[in-house]
């Protein structure tokens, strides 16, 4: 009888509880059942998809278990002492304060454990440092706050492009009074164009930076390498599984450090070749565009897109900037002055300020478009335009 009774009591309590807190329970159920959020109690490192990432993971686990073993012994003796030798239980203190044998033992044993750890670590490290004999080289350049990927050793038109955060600002700007959009599945870990590499091929990354120090981190490859201005660091990967992998910039690089994700798409060789051919074709088109004629209206329209991607983070959507670090463009001397000055600022940047030199980052069409847009927007009414050819000639002159 008793078990039935208590079961009844429990179930009636449970249903009352459910009635009372139904909304809370619903919310909790949603939290714990949604697959995206289930992953959010992740405790450990990823094994990744390369031989090196697996070996790194194993090394990590080995050291954890060694630490756990040492911890059991050390904490064991400590807690035993805390319980066994209490004054309240009438413990009388011993008088020893020295024991050479014990001290030698606990100096030597850790030393041996350390050597046991150092051997496999050295092996993995040497493997990581072997970046020779790659089938493909990709230059990765960090900029505030986007990555540029350039495929080297190529024939035909060069494939070079930027990879920008594609999460819309409405999702992350949740300041009071702002209307926010719901956050997507890959919130802050999604880009407009991922880096694409072929599967099972040794790909070498050559990392550098165009402004401050960044760090290119792809946990599934166990690669984290700093992108440093004036340096060229090398790292290589043999990805063993196709798919989409996500990482982030790991070195504080200014205001939007938290907003420059890395996405890599690993494709089968045939799919990669197809993608690469398309990229080359598109690059050829851009080259052809430079000699094409545009109207002012066309450039303003194209310039809006370029502005939103490259300029808005600092100069803001309304062109008001964030003075004094990021000056306003609305009514500015540059955007309302001679065209030569505006071209110079955008192409070569401003020394000693956060304004970068976009001459090496953007195509002539994009630069001409964004300059034309800035001179004819935010209340600026210059009525003039820059042409891609003009930009191209200035780029070549330097």
């Amino acid at each position, binding site marked *: 009888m008793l078990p039935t009774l208590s079961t009844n009591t429990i179930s009636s309590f449970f249903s009352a509880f459910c009635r009372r807190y139904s909304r809370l329970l619903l919310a909790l159920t949603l939290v714990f059942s949604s697959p995206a959020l289930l992953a959010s109690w992740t405790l450990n490192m990823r094994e990744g998809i390369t031989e090196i990432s697996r070996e*790194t993971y194993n090394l*990590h686990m080995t050291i954890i278990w060694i630490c756990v073993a040492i911890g059991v012994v050390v904490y064991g003796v400590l807690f035993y002492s805390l319980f066994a*030798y209490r004054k309240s239980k009438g413990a009388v203190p*011993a008088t020893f304060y020295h024991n050479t044998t014990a*001290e030698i033992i606990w100096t030597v044993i850790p030393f041996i454990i350390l050597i046991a750890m150092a051997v496999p670590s050295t092996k993995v490290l040497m493997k990581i440092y072997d970046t020779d004999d790659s089938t493909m080289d990709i230059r990765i350049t960090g900029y505030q706050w986007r990555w540029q990927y350039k495929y080297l050793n190529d024939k035909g038109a060069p494939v070079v492009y930027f990879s920008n955060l594609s999460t819309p600002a409405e999702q*992350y700007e949740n300041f009071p009074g702002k209307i926010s959009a719901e956050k997507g599945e890959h919130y802050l870990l999604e880009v407009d164009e991922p880096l694409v590499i072929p599967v099972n091929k040794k790909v070498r990354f050559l990392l550098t930076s165009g402004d401050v120090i960044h760090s290119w981190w792809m946990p599934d490859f166990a690669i984290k390498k700093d992108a440093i201005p004036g340096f060229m660091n*090398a790292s290589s990967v043999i990805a063993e599984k196709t798919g989409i992998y996500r990482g982030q910039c790991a070195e504080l690089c200014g205001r939007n450090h938290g907003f420059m994700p890395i996405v890599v798409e690993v494709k089968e060789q045939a799919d990669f070749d197809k993608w690469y051919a398309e990229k080359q074709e598109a690059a050829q088109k851009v080259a052809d565009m430079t000699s094409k004629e545009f109207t002012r209206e066309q450039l303003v329209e194209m310039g809006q897109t370029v502005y939103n991607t490259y300029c808005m983070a600092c100069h803001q959507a309304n062109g008001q900037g964030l003075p004094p670090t990021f000056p306003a463009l609305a009514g500015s001397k540059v955007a309302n002055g001679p065209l030569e000055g505006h071209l110079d600022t955008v192409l070569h940047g401003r020394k000693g300020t956060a304004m970068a030199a976009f001459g090496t980052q953007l195509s002539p069409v994009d630069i001409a478009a964004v300059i034309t847009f800035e001179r004819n927007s935010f209340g600026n009414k210059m009525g003039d335009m820059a042409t891609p050819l003009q930009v191209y000639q200035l780029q070549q002159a330097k």
Partner: protein
Amino acid sequence: MATGHDDHHHGPAKGLTRWLYTTNHKDIGTLYLWFSFAMFLLGGTFALVIRAELFQPGLQFVDPNLFNQMTTMHGLVMVFGAVMPAFVGLANWMVPMMIGAPDMALPRMNNWSFWILPFAFAMMSSTLFMDGGGPNFGWTFYAPLSTTFAPKSVTFFIFAVHMMGASSIMGSINIIATIQNLRAPGMTYMKMPLFVWTWLITAYLLIAVMPVLAGVVTMMLFDIHFGTSFFSAAGGGDPVLFQHVFWFFGHPEVYIMILPAFGVVSEIIPTFSRKRLFGYDSMVYATSSIAFLSFIVWAHHMFTTGMPLAGELFFMYSTMLIAVPTGVKVFNWITTMFKGSLSFETPMLFAIAFVVLFTCGGFTGLMLAIAPADFQYQDTYFVVAHFHYVLVPGAVFSIMAAAYYWLPKWTGNMYDENLGKLHFWLSFIGINILFFPQHFLGLAGMPRRVPDYALQFANFNMVSSIGAFFFGFSQLLLLFIVIKTIKGGKKATAQVWEGAEGLEWTLPSPAPYHTFSTPPPIK
């Protein structure tokens, strides 16, 4: 007993000038400790801004630029404003009383080295209200983010760092001069209390590396204002050079913040175990080895910068070696408790928590030393968890332990033991809720110094933020306990603690304004 009764040695002056003009080591110690506590609350407030923003994904409260200023200022204020001055304050109060000296060796310089600090921090904090905001490049201020790309206020930051450095160098010269010259006859080096030993070694570390810090900020100043290119690749300079110079200062700096903590714990554990410290000699040698090693491990902060393989291996091996002397210390503390007669007053609770949680930080430190694994840990929340485990339940807990331990000696009153224990347990629970989940966040892939994060990091960030507010507000209880103790309470005896040994416990409580005007006899 030790107070002279001629006319010049009456009590302290009255009013504000007592504190402005004082050359008394106890007054200056008090000033340092109050200043440190104020900075602890200020730096803690910055941390709570950070944790409030990270409570949920999305940007709710602060702009990313302000967020970066908060992480930077939190680090600078806690390192240079809270932890270091607290230890200098403890040294001021305790070193002369522990070695039987009448005061510090250079009392006027002592006054000066303290009074520079409030101005340095006022200047540094004022940058938050300047055009373009305060320092936003992290407390490690890597170039060129802190030079070419820095806000204009960086010059004030550089000047403030110079002032703090001058203060630290003067303070450490004073401590060295005191320990080496003013020990009572018979107090040989190997009879000094361990707190004195660890501070002697720390003071030498400070003198060695503070000028390096001054050098690196001066090079920044020249890059920013005088057209040099030390750290600018475009001008033929080297951004990685900055990191080498910074960490040549920065790694010994880490030990500057932990060696005196070792000293404090080595005083407290024997007292409440009623048993002599185990392995005194090896404690001294271990501390010296750690100090030596701290100069040859700096580039383990830079494993991802692309050092050559030989460099990576050297710094990996040398870093792993630190585990040996650190292990010796932990074993000695535990063996001191083994077969002792333990009681658990608040200082002892903090000291035991120190041993347990510092060891935990030591384990993650060992993991971080393994270069290939470090590629996955570097610049993630795993690192944040690691260094907070050694700095908060490490350095900060030892400071709190020291405060409870010597408070009866300073004020003449016992603190409220129940409130003290409550404060300990709130802090202990709070700190673990705050920092333990950060290990998981880092391993799962969350970078540090980001104002917003992907959805899979949401749960543990929320837990961590709850822990932060819990821990933060618990510290107001410490303020209350200290004020209550100053105002009154059960009168403390001279020895205060049953198992306490050492010269400071031969003095009456509260310790008279002037002590050991004639040196005490040493057995």
